[in-house]
């Protein structure tokens, strides 16, 4: 047998409470040995891991890959390549493509494109309602059979509580996992940013926190009633965390994630009408940001990318007219590493929030142990990278790191043992 040998890297895997400098041997896509040389076979390739972290590959619980339907903004190949460059090995693709992921043919098409691209695994999220219209129940079981890991309505609303109730009941029938992003559009639809002093000063119609918390209350009550397996996507408010905690104390097993952008920026970033920082859920205040960081550090919250690539035209217009979203994949790792560097996130909490917790949400086997498929990232925390605008891997022209030089890079990324970076 011929081995890939990763030498003396700091192996960190929160799922097994491991943090140790060791050797790791990979063959046939799987980890064959940790800490000791396999008895037979030869080392074909050796990577010096000294000073680097070897961690389970990052799993994104929600990103937009722009395909099918938005060829001017991105493609599965370009976006998963960008994701891999930040250490992602798995990306959950949101269903609000064109056409919407509401039938097995589209799921098939996405999986085939991802296979051809040969970068990160794409885990399709199917639509909970046909065309995401929020009115009827989609062919959930068929979507699941076609390969959807969970179903979601992206940020589109359900027509009313009745539809949501029936959608959740039906999903519970087949033990389908649902991802719900809380947003009461009657409160959020006219807004473009967080409602607060900055929005008032700029004259931008705001999105109050209650747009999230009211929808979250409705969702939590119906999740409890229907007993569906549910994950709450894209939390942005401190108050939502309190509500999630209360739900857990009442015995519900509910998970949640927050977009990385909401851990880094606040509504102050929007000052000067910078449309790059127009994202949904909106960037909120420092109080919210601190609460979200604390929840990640406490292991209560996963971090998602909420990656959403746009072409120049999508952002180069007035703030209100600009499309929401940030191209996050290129800069995801160094931006998160900055939080670790500043002490806002612990190393362990960060790694757990992007690998262990998402794997638990999806019920995936995902750890660095002997016999497992080798999905991992070798990260050099000290390596500096310059993100030249013309060298970004995502097609999106709306990356917050464009033109910056940042520390922390994936020096090697493996998907099922195959080196992609």
């Amino acid at each position: 047998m011929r081995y890939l040998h990763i030498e003396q890297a700091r192996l960190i895997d929160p799922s097994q409470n491991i943090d140790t400098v060791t050797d790791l041997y990979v063959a046939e896509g799987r980890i064959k040995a940790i800490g000791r040389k396999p008895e037979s076979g030869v080392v074909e390739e050796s990577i010096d891991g000294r000073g680097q972290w070897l961690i389970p590959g990052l799993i994104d619980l929600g990103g937009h890959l722009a395909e099918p339907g938005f060829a001017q903004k991105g493609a599965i190949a370009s976006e998963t390549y960008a994701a891999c460059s930040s250490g992602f090995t798995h990306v959950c693709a949101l269903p609000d493509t064109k056409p919407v992921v509401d039938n097995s043919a589209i799921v098939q098409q996405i999986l085939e494109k991802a296979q051809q691209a040969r970068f990160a695994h794409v885990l399709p999220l199917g639509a909970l309602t046909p065309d995401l219209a929020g009115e009827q129940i989609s062919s959930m079981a068929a979507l699941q059979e076609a390969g959807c890991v969970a179903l979601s309505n992206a940020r589109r609303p359900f027509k009313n509580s009745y539809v949501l109730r029936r959608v959740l009941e039906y999903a519970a029938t087949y033990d389908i996992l649902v991802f719900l992003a809380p947003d009461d559009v009657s409160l959020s639809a006219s807004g473009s940013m967080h409602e607060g002093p900055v929005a008032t000063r700029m004259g931008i119609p705001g999105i109050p926190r209650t747009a999230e918390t009211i929808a979250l209350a409705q969702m939590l009550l119906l999740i409890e009633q229907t007993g569906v397996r549910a994950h709450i996507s894209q939390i942005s408010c401190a108050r939502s965390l309190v509500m999630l905690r209360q739900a857990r104390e009442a015995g519900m097993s509910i998970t949640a994630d927050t977009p990385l952008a909401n851990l880094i920026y606040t509504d102050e970033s929007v000052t000067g009408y910078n449309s790059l920082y127009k994202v949904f859920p909106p960037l909120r205040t420092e109080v919210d940001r601190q609460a979200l960081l604390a929840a990640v550090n406490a292991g209560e919250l996963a971090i998602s990318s909420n990656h959403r690539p746009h072409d120049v035209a999508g952002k180069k217009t007035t703030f209100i007219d600009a499309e929401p979203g940030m191209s996050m994949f290129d800069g995801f790792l160094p931006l998160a590493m900055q939080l670790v560097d500043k002490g806002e996130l612990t190393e362990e909490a960060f790694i757990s929030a992007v690998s262990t917790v998402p794997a638990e949400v999806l019920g995936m086997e995902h750890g660095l142990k002997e016999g497992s498929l080798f999905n991992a990232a070798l990260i050099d925390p000290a390596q500096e990278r310059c993100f030249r605008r013309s060298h970004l891997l995502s097609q999106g022209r709306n990356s917050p790191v464009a033109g910056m030089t940042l520390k922390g890079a994936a020096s090697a990324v493996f998907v099922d043992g195959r080196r992609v970076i």
Partner: protein
Amino acid sequence: MIINPCNVQLTADGRLKHFLTTEGLSKALLTEILDTADSFISTQEREIKKVPLLRGKTVVNLFFENSTRTRSTFELAAKRLSADILNLDIARSATSKGETLMDTLWNLEAMYSDVFVVRHADSGAAHFIAEQVTPNVAIINAGDGRHAHPTQAMLDMLTIRRHKGSIEGKVVAVVGDILHSRVARSQIHALNTLGAAEVRVIGPRTLLPRDIGGLGCKVFYKLEDGLKDCDVVIMLRLQKERMQDALLPSGSEFYKRYGLTVDKLKLAKPDAIVMHPGPINRGVEIESTVADGAQSVILNQVSYGIAVRMAVMAMAMSGQQQERNERAQAQGEL
């Protein structure tokens, strides 16, 4: 990370090159605008009203949102500065054909214009255009969404100064739909910078934006409380749509609570002046007797509007000219 939105409108040495907002401008600069406008008022009274300050320059009225009154005063102001003027009603042409804002701008730049007077329904539109256009084009904000209407605010400042002697030490109340008002926001910044003793906003909670007090004003929910001892009362226009948006029960209910009547005006100082950016809704915001009464200066505001618009166009053009000269000089040195 935080960019001061006001820096875009100034040259390196702090002179006006665009006029986007009153926020962040110095007292000296705002006073310079008022002084310049004052000097234009006297030229308006002459038989020959034109001055040659913008001769050979092209001013484009770029209105993405309809407004006959503001557009006419800008047109008149540009003509009295001897500029050529082009009126573009984008609301009814380009963008409805699917052309993006950037496409429209590039087309207009190709026509070698010198000043864009911009009105747009989106807050920040004038700011965006100022950042995107080629150098040498001065942007004058003629109203962007709920954000700013700085020439209206400055003509209001001029009105106060001419009728009350100065803005310093004055108590000024702004009444009505503050939530949707770009005028109110621009007034609050200008009044504070120019030394008003107190700026008050008065309206029901549905028409007051969150945390408006943070802009430097005191919030009142009852007209009677807010009018007490005011030197200046500024009434805002109430759009009819507000009733449909579940912000107000009815026009008559609003008038009963927030309409300025002869009796309520008595709560202000006896020599208080009454202002309104127009067009007024008689019997909704203001009683006719008050609008046409001795304390009303509403019509004076209109004539000062032309002088203020002449002033900011002339000042911004001169700021642009100065930058152009500096650029030429820098290139020469290379």
